[in-house]
C-alpha cells in the first residue's frame, strides 16, 4: 500500500518539484515526502497515462502543455480527470564562458549562425559564416560554435519558435517562400559540426563550454544564476534575462512549466491534494519562497488564485 505521492516527468521541473516535495514533507508531519522522478515530460506523461491505481504515478511534471493526443491516450487508459497546474515560468538564456566575448544577440544572428542555408541578396546560399563578426560587426570575433538543446528537449521547441523562426522571418527572402516551405527552410541546420545538439542536461552544455572556449550554450536561467562565476549571459534584443524582465514579458525566450494531477487519485493517495495545493501556494512558490530561490519564475497573483481554485474543484481537462 502506497502512502507516498509519486511524481515523475520533466527534468526541468524536477528541481522545483523536489524542493516543493521536501518542503512539503518538512511542513506536514502527517504525510511522507513525495518521491519525484525524472524521465522527461514525455516519459512522465507516459507513466501518468498508464492508468489508475497505486502502481501508477499521481503527478506528471511537464515543461510543456499536455497534447490532445496524450489526453486521448490517457482517457483510453481510464485517466479521465487530468488537472493541469501551471507552476511558473522558466527563462532560457544564451551564455558563454566568462573569458569569451560579450554577446548582444538578436534572433536573426542565431538563425544565421545555425542555418544550413542563408538568404543572401535574394538567393539562398549554403551558410558561409564561420565567425560571429561575419554575421554582424557588433558581435565579437569568435568562431561560431552553438550548443543547442537536442530535439528531445522542450527547450528546443521554445528555442526554435522564439528565436530561430523569429529570426528567420525577418528576411524578405524567407517571407517570399511558399508558406509550407518556410519552416523547413528555417529549421534546417548546418551539419559541419558548428552546431551541437545537447541531448543531456545543462551540465553537459557547461562541460562543452569548458572543453571549447568559443562555444555558446543554451541554459536555464536558474542554472546560469548558480554558475555566474563560470558563464556569462548574452542579451537578446538588448534585454538582459532577469526574473523581472521575464515576468514583464520583455525577454522573449521563456516558457511556462506545468504539472498534471491525476484526479482519480485524490482521496486515495494521502497528501496528494495537499501537495498540489502547497506547490502553488504563495508560501512555496511565491516571491521570496524557496522555489523562487531555486530559480522558478513565479506566477502572478490572479493566475495563482485561478489555479488553486482549479485544484480545489478538481477541474480536469
Amino acid at each position, binding site marked *: 500500500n*502506497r502512502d*507516498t505521492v*509519486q511524481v*515523475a516527468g520533466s*527534468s526541468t521541473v*524536477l*528541481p522545483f*518539484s*523536489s*524542493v516543493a*516535495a*521536501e*518542503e512539503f*514533507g*518538512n*511542513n*506536514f*508531519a*502527517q504525510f*511522507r*515526502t513525495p*518521491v*519525484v*522522478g*525524472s*524521465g522527461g515530460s514525455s*516519459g512522465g506523461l507516459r*507513466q501518468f497515462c*498508464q492508468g489508475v491505481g*497505486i*502502481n*501508477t*504515478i499521481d503527478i506528471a511534471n511537464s515543461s510543456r502543455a499536455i497534447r490532445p493526443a496524450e489526453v486521448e491516450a490517457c482517457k483510453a487508459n481510464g485517466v479521465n480527470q487530468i488537472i493541469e497546474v501551471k507552476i511558473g515560468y522558466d527563462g532560457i538564456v544564451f551564455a558563454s564562458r*566568462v573569458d569569451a566575448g560579450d554577446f548582444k544577440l538578436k534572433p536573426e544572428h542565431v538563425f544565421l549562425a545555425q542555418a544550413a542555408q542563408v538568404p543572401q541578396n535574394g538567393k539562398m546560399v549554403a551558410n558561409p559564416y564561420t565567425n560571429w563578426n561575419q554575421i554582424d560587426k557588433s558581435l565579437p570575433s569568435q568562431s561560431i560554435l552553438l550548443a543547442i538543446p537536442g530535439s528531445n528537449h522542450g527547450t528546443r521547441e521554445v528555442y526554435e519558435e522564439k528565436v530561430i523562426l523569429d529570426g528567420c522571418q525577418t528576411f524578405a527572402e524567407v517571407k517570399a517562400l511558399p508558406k509550407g516551405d518556410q519552416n523547413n527552410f528555417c529549421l534546417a541546420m548546418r551539419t559541419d559540426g558548428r552546431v551541437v545538439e545537447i541531448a543531456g*542536461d*545543462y*551540465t553537459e552544455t*557547461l562541460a562543452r563550454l569548458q572543453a571549447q572556449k568559443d562555444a555558446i550554450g543554451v541554459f536555464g536561467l*536558474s*542554472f546560469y*544564476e*548558480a*554558475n*555566474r*562565476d*563560470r558563464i556569462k549571459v548574452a542579451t537578446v534584443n538588448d534585454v538582459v534575462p532577469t526574473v523581472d524582465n521575464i515576468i514583464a514579458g520583455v525577454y522573449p525566450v521563456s516558457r511556462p512549466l506545468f504539472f498534471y494531477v491525476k484526479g482519480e487519485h485524490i482521496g486515495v493517495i494521502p497528501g496528494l491534494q495537499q501537495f498540489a495545493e502547497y506547490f502553488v501556494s504563495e508560501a512555496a512558490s511565491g516571491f521570496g519562497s*524557496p522555489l523562487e530561490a*531555486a*530559480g522558478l519564475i513565479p506566477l502572478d497573483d490572479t493566475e495563482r488564485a485561478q489555479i488553486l481554485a482549479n485544484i480545489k474543484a478538481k477541474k480536469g481537462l
Partner: protein
Amino acid sequence: MTEKNMNPANNSAADGVAPLSKVQQKVAVSLNRRHRHEKLFKGVGLVASLISLLLVAILFINIFSKGLPAFWQSAITLEIYFDPEIIKISDKPVQRADETDNAFRQRDIEWQSEVGMINFNRLIVEGLNKVLPDANQYRRDVQRIVTSGERFAMRQLVIDNPAIIGQTKTLNLLTDANIDVWLKGNIDRSLPDAQQQLSPKVREWVEMLSEQGIIKNRFSFALFMNADSRSSLASAGLAGAFMGSLYMMLVVLFLAVPMGVAAAIYLEEFAPKNKITDLVEVNINNLAAVPSIVFGLLGAAVFIGWFNLPISAPIVGGLVLSLMTLPTVIIATRSTLKAIPPSIRQAALGLGASKMQATFHHVLPLAIPGILTGAILGVAQALGEAAPLLLIGMKSFVAQVPSGPFEQATALPVQIFLWQGNELRNFFEARTSAAIIVLLALMLTLNGLAIWLRKKYENRW
C-alpha cells in the same frame, strides 16, 4: 657424424661445444626471430596490463582528487539555547490504554504538526547573534549562514526529547553550501560581487568565523546519514541512495547469480544440442546487447503493471537489474563450463554419479572462478546502471532513507546523476565524485567476497 663436428658454424652455440644437426641449425636460425616475438608478446602483454592499470589509476586519481574534499564540510559551532519562550508546545502525547493505535497516531501527528509550527530558525539566529556582533543589522545575511535543513534537525531533537527545552546545547551546524564552496576556494575569490554567490557581508563574517575557529572543516557525517536534499543543499547526503543500491544489489546477487548459473548449467550440461538450444544461446547473447533502458520498459510493464509491485522500490529495481545482469552471468558461466575437460565428467559418470551429481560435485566447483567473475562484472555493471531505473520510478528524488526493499528509494548512480546535474556546480562537482567513491567502495565490498573466493578456487592442472 664427423661432418657434424666439422661444422661449428652457429652463433647461438658460439662457444663451440655444441655442433648442431642440420635440422637443429634451422631451428637455431629461426630462434632469434622467435625470441624477439616472444619478448614482444610478453612485453605487449605487460604493457597492456600496465595500460589498463594506468587507466584505472587515472580514473581513480581523477575521481579521488575531486571527491575526497567533499567528505569534509564546513560546519559552524554554535551555542543553541532551546528557548521555552520560542518553543511553546504542549506535552508529547503518550498512548493511553484505551486508545487504538490509529487514534494515537492521529494525536501524535497533531503534536508533531504543532512542533512544526515553531520557527526554529530563531534559535539559530539567536545563536549566531552571540558570535556576530553586527548580526542584527543584516537580518537577511544572517539567514544565509546555516543551511536551511538544520532547523529540521533541531526540530527532530525536540521531538525525540522534549526535555531539551530550556537547555543550552553546543551544536555543530552545517553551513550553507556556498560558504563551503567559498572556504574551500572552489570559487575564485577575486571575482566581482556580481559573480559571487555570497554577499560581501557574509563573506566577511565567514572569514572572521573561520579565523576564530568557529567555522571549521569537519568530517561530514551528514553525507552518510542524510538522504538527498534539494532545499538544503549542504545537508544532502547519500544514505538513501546507498541503501537503495544495497537492497537492489542484494536482490541481484541472490537472484541473478543463482538463476544465471542454473540456466548456464542447464544449457551447457543438460540441454540437448539442437536448433532450439542454439536459438536459446543466440537469444541470451542477444539479451546482453539490449540497451538497458529497454529492460526498464519491460520492468515497468511486468513487475509494476502485472505483479503490482510498488513504484520506485528497490525490489523492482533489483528485479529489473537482475534480468539485465542475467545474460552476463549466463555467458560467463557457460564460457567456463565449456573450458572444463570432459574427462572430469567421464570420471564421475564412470563411478556411477548421475549427470546432475557429476555436474554439481565436479564440474561446477571447477567453474567457480569463472562464475564469480561473471558475478563481479554483472554486479559492477548493475550497480552503475541508471537508465532502466528511469522507467520504474527509481530515477527519483527521494528525501527519505528506505527501511526495506519495498520502500521508495533511489540509487547511487541516480544520485550521482542528480548531483552532477545540479546547478550549484561548485558544490556538487566534488559531491558527485564523493558519491562515485562511495559507489566504488560499495562495489568493491560486494565483490570482495567473490574476489576472495575466486582466488581460493583458482586451480590449474
